[in-house]
């Protein structure tokens, strides 16, 4: 089932690639939007293949992929927010202890510790390590920054592969489909909000935070992503109505994630978190919605279906 769904994603990308190439051939010289569109589609191929390989190889591949994404996202986050010399040890703790342990707990299926490692233990240990470093300037700001980076880039994102731990009646061994469902709805919502915004966008939601986010784009993108999620109900443990509600939840919360991460970028005066993904920006620019949607989708599914 997973392979067929991935094949469908591939088919969508083939169509997108053809459209992108046709637009490029028709406009000479190609406009900036067309160049960016083609770059984005090319990058989508790479991302889709990486994701497909990860989910097809099962829990190990999925956990490794998300651990790597956490690493890259937190590297972008720490680079962007500026760290001081006295933060060094606390950052080592975040990168080389908290991050790998969080994902190792998924591998050994220790949900209890997984859910509190960062909100309890890292929360207390990070300020302790910073205090031991002896620098008091901006102490609370520096502490909060590192904790926030860990909470979003590592803790929140790790809820996507944590879906593999859910024990749902009649759905055992197929939890990978939940990861696929989450990622597909989040990314479809992002892309369709962008498309709907370009086509119909007039009223901006928060012009200072993100000039490209409009009410028309939001409503159109969320509705379309909800439709796609609903159409996939047969691949999930949900009924069509439940799949619709879950998709709506994922799309709306994902939107909020994008908005929050955009606010950080504006505050720091940059357009993107990085340059790793051509046409998209950094890893964080691509997963900002997922970071917010993953824990909410996980807990909604756990509460109602486990």
């Amino acid at each position, binding site marked *: 089932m997973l392979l067929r769904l991935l094949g469908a994603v591939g088919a969508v990308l083939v169509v997108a690639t053809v459209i992108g190439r046709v637009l490029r051939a028709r406009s000479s010289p190609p406009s900036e939007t067309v160049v960016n569109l083609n770059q984005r589609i090319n990058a989508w191929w790479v991302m889709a293949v990486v994701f497909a390989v990860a989910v097809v190889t099962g829990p190990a591949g999925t956990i490794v992929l998300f651990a790597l994404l956490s*690493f890259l996202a937190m590297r972008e986050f720490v680079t962007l927010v500026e760290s001081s010399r006295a933060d060094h040890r606390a950052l080592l703790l975040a*990168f*080389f202890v908290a991050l790998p342990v969080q994902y190792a707990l998924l591998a050994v299926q220790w949900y209890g510790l997984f859910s509190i490692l960062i909100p309890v233990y890292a929360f207390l240990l990070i300020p302790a390590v910073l205090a031991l470093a002896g620098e008091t300037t901006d102490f609370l700001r520096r502490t909060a920054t590192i904790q926030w980076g860990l909470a979003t880039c590592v803790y929140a994102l790790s809820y996507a592969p944590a879906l593999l731990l859910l024990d749902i009646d009649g759905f055992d061994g197929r939890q990978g489909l939940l990861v696929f469902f989450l990622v597909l709805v989040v990314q479809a919502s992002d892309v369709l909000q962008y498309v709907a915004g370009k086509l119909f966008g007039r009223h901006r939601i928060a012009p200072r935070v993100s000039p490209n986010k409009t009410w028309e784009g939001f409503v159109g993108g969320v509705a379309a992503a909800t439709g796609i999620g609903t159409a996939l109900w047969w691949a999930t443990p949900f009924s069509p109505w439940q799949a619709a509600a879950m998709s709506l939840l994922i799309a709306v919360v994902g939107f909020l994630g994008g908005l929050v991460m955009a606010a950080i970028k504006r505050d720091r005066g940059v357009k993107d978190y990085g340059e790793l993904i051509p046409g998209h920006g950094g890893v964080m620019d691509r997963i900002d919605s997922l970071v917010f949607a993953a824990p909410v989708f996980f807990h909604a599914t756990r509460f109602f279906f486990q």
Partner: protein
Amino acid sequence: MSGAVAQSRADAAVAGSLAGLARLLTGAVPVWRGPRSSDRPRVYYANHSSHFDAVTVWAGLPPELRSRTRPVAAADYWEKTRLRRHLAARVFRAVLIDRAGGGPAATQEMAAVLREGDSLILFPEGTRGDGREVAPFKSGLHHLAVAVPEAELVPVRLSNLNRVLPKGERVPVPVIARLVFGEPLAVVPGEPKDAMLTRARQALLALEER
């Protein structure tokens, strides 16, 4: 010391993996403002704020240039332990110079490497700074330019390395670094030492803006 040091296959593999590790930690994608390669030996001179600087510049070079580029490093640091000695001599093929003695002997050693056709990575500030300011250059770069006029002096601007591995720390933190290779410095015959050093430093500072 300056003669080309034989590198075993194992050491070459270690060198390759260290370059990969450096790129994984710093994510530095090198930006080339000038030509990537040249048929003349080069002195890549960079600002200095971290022990990670040399490996970052070195890892940022294309492999075929990297194998012919040798970092210049302080003998007092790199000869302290067996591991460091091995890394310096066999893996990085560093040119170790005596910071205290310095002067003509060091210049001669570096010049000899350039005349053999290899390139150098040099930190003309002489010591690591805090990452905010670039200190005035020591005169070594000028002496070297006079001794080997055919060598190209290429400014290399490093940013954020002081955050990857600040002074006094042992384990690097993953922070994205910036690494910009500039145009080779133009040669001005008969230019006085101070003017040349100031110009070289300005060329490096100018690489900061995007």
